[in-house]
């Protein structure tokens, strides 16, 4: 159902949640936008602004990652605790409910800045080429690992490829034996007498197994190949009749 998306009335609606790298990133954005000091963040204000964003995103049917919701709960909790009178005992420092969050924000911001610096280096070094290592570095299949340089992952990959190769081939049990072609030929010699035409079904007898049919059929083909037997079949699937030719047993 196409949701009737209302035009954003809060400041939050104009920015998509997925342009942020998580709740801390969003909080830093809000703090900067409202020109607040990270060490002296008015939690009530920030929590309000933050929740505005999350609600706006939810109204737009955006998938709000669970981390954002956890942060919303954390902010609400900090906000409510900061409103309650502190029960710290004498001489004990009052627990600052926002301290942990501030710590997180400061740390995250430091790494976010570092990530930006890395990105600048990445940009520079995309344009720098060394000789002739690029062929190796950018080869689709990574080059082999130097002795002593293999990491756990290399070993796991190697193990994986080994176990893939060592996988035993599926085993089929084969029935000991049925009929050899030689045996069938010998039987045919007894069944097809000189000067008489004999039918295939006559040779096979009543209720032959599939294996018997195949063995005898192959034997017949062999005899035809040798020119010992002439075979007739009036139409497809009709009875096959066989007769010895003049060359029967001549070669044996």
């Amino acid at each position, binding site marked *: 159902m196409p949701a009737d998306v209302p035009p954003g009335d809060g400041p939050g609606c104009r920015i998509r949640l997925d342009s942020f790298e998580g*709740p801390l990133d969003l909080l830093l954005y809000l703090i900067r936008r409202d020109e607040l000091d990270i060490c002296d963040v008015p939690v009530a204000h920030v929590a309000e602004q933050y929740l505005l964003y999350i609600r706006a995103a939810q109204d737009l049917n955006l998938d709000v990652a669970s981390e954002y919701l956890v942060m919303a709960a954390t902010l609400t909790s900090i906000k409510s605790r900061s409103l309650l009178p502190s029960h710290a005992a004498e001489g004990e420092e009052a627990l600052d409910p926002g*301290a942990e969050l501030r710590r997180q924000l400061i740390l995250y911001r430091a790494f976010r800045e*570092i*990530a930006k610096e*890395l990105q600048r280096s*990445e940009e520079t*070094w*995309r344009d720098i080429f060394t000789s002739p*290592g690029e062929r190796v570095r950018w080869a689709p299949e990574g080059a082999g690992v130097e002795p002593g340089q293999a990491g756990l992952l290399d070993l796991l990959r190697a193990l994986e490829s080994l176990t893939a190769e060592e996988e035993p081939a599926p085993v089929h049990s084969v029935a000991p034996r049925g009929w050899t072609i030689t045996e069938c030929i010998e039987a045919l010699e007894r069944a097809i007498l000189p000067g008489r035409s004999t039918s295939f079904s006559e040779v096979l007898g009543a209720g032959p197994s599939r294996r018997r049919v195949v063995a005898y059929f192959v034997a017949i083909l062999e005899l035809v190949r040798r020119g010992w037997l002439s075979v007739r079949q009036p139409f497809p699937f009709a009875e096959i009749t066989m007769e010895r030719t003049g060359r029967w047993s001549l070669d044996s």
Partner: protein
Amino acid sequence: MILDRLAREVEALLFASDAPLSARQLGELTGSGEESLVQAVERIDAAFREQGHAFHVVEVAGGYRIATDPEYGPVVSQLFEGQKPGRLTRAALETLAVIAYSQPCSRAAIEAIRGVNCDSALRTLIERDMVKISGRMESPGRPLLYATTTSFLEYFGLADLDHLPRMEEISGLLGMTSSELEERDLFRTDDHGE
């Protein structure tokens, strides 16, 4: 400038090697002392500049390499059309930053700093050979520990881990309590300045 024998040997080695060569390695290969090799590298670099070459010697991933000037990036890039991997995403870069400064570290430690799930970013970094599994933490669940690779240094043109931007300051931050952090807030002015 006419290069001496040692400088030319070093130049040849750097040209032919597919990995950075450290002063120690160059010393072993040429039979000279590390000190004289550092100077030889400087002479080569000076000669390149003097003669207006398109490349120079860079110090990267614990060694020296001959590398083209970024100015010629666009023209050389054509050779590797379609082979060059894409740029890393912000999520991957942030994850990499945390690992680089606090390695070896667990996924939970990274996620505590970034405040988001880092699964797919980590996977990308491992696939791109920027990060490797370096062991397990001796704590309940024995979580995997991650560290950066030599490719990471090469990719970002870093001589070694000590050359990461603001290495001391950032690694110092990690051990601080929140009040210390607030006092030493490095980026305090950035927020208003940007």
